[in-house]
């Protein structure tokens, strides 16, 4: 009588716990968004690096735009593969205030050659180990590439991503910030 009612309520309670556990573990298992250290945003904004022609470029020259900083290298196949989509995004959203900036953990001559081959339409800065170290403080704890940071128009970090940043995700994030 009453037992049957209780029986079902217990099963329902288990079901709800299962739902809660599922949500908790489901969220946990999602690859977590890399978390920047406190001073990392300031360090990124204040960064100055030579471009592939040797001319020094400061990241803060693009303050007021939505800036996508993409750490990459010619020796990184997935990095090279995502760049044609970045070129498309720069064409499409550049007029609305998007600026993509590549930071290559690489040699200048290799960067120049690859940039020319793919028709790169955004700056390719050349960084060394220091650039890798900066990416670590931005949340790239395993120091792998590609690693991408999106800054809003005020220079605050809006998104970090380890691994390829797909166009639909890029568009979703950037359009909100533009």
């Amino acid at each position: 009588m009453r037992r049957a009612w209780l029986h079902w309520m217990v099963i329902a309670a288990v079901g709800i716990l299962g739902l809660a556990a599922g949500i908790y573990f489901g969220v946990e298992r999602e690859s977590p968004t890399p978390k920047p250290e406190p001073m990392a945003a300031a360090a990124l904004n204040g960064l100055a690096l030579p471009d592939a022609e040797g001319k020094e470029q400061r990241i803060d020259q693009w303050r007021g735009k939505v800036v996508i900083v993409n750490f990459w290298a010619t020796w990184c196949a997935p990095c090279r593969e995502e760049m044609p989509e970045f070129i498309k995004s720069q064409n499409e959203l550049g007029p609305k205030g998007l600026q993509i900036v590549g930071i290559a953990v690489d040699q200048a001559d290799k960067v120049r050659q690859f940039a020319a081959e793919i028709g790169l339409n955004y700056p390719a800065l050349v960084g060394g180990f220091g650039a890798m170290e900066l990416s670590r403080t931005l949340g790239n704890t395993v120091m792998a590439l590609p690693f991408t940071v999106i800054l809003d128009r005020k220079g605050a970090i809006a998104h970090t991503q380890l691994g390829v940043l797909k166009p639909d995700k890029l568009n979703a994030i950037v359009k909100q910030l533009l």
Partner: protein
Amino acid sequence: MASPNISTGSPAKRSHLDWVARALVGVGISMVLASGPSAADPKLLPPEQAFRFSARALNDRTLEARFAVADGYYLYREKLKFAVEPEIAGLAVPPLPPGKVKEDQFFGKVETYRGDVVVKLPLPMPAGGQSLVLTADSQGCADVGVCYPVNRQKVTLVLPATGKGPGAVVEAHPRKKSWFN
């Protein structure tokens, strides 16, 4: 006459609760199942765990280097480099074992290694009793779509006396022993 059906409270109310309970159970179970093998990337390993380096001395003049490449990762054959200190002139690195050929858009044909990679390194002369530091450079990627820069790992080996058998395996980054290992 026995009445087989024993009714408990109002039948309409009871069946309502039944359905709510069953619905909750169903939703709960499906949420647990859905969250299980999630489409999200598994956690990425640091390079010294993805590409575990260890070595041992086989005898007084031969070293054996080993990479244990974790599942879902691979190394580039062309980027494997070895060196010893103190510098021994003419450390021979014999041709590396063949890897799996992959066509790379930019670099053309590349060879990769997965799983265990073992390389024998003969020394030009016996060095029984001597201590050497073996340095290995490797570069690899994860299948999920990231690549690591060249990673350097070192081990110190003491060569056994002439005529003696293999020395112990030395790991560059020993695993911490824990419940889960």
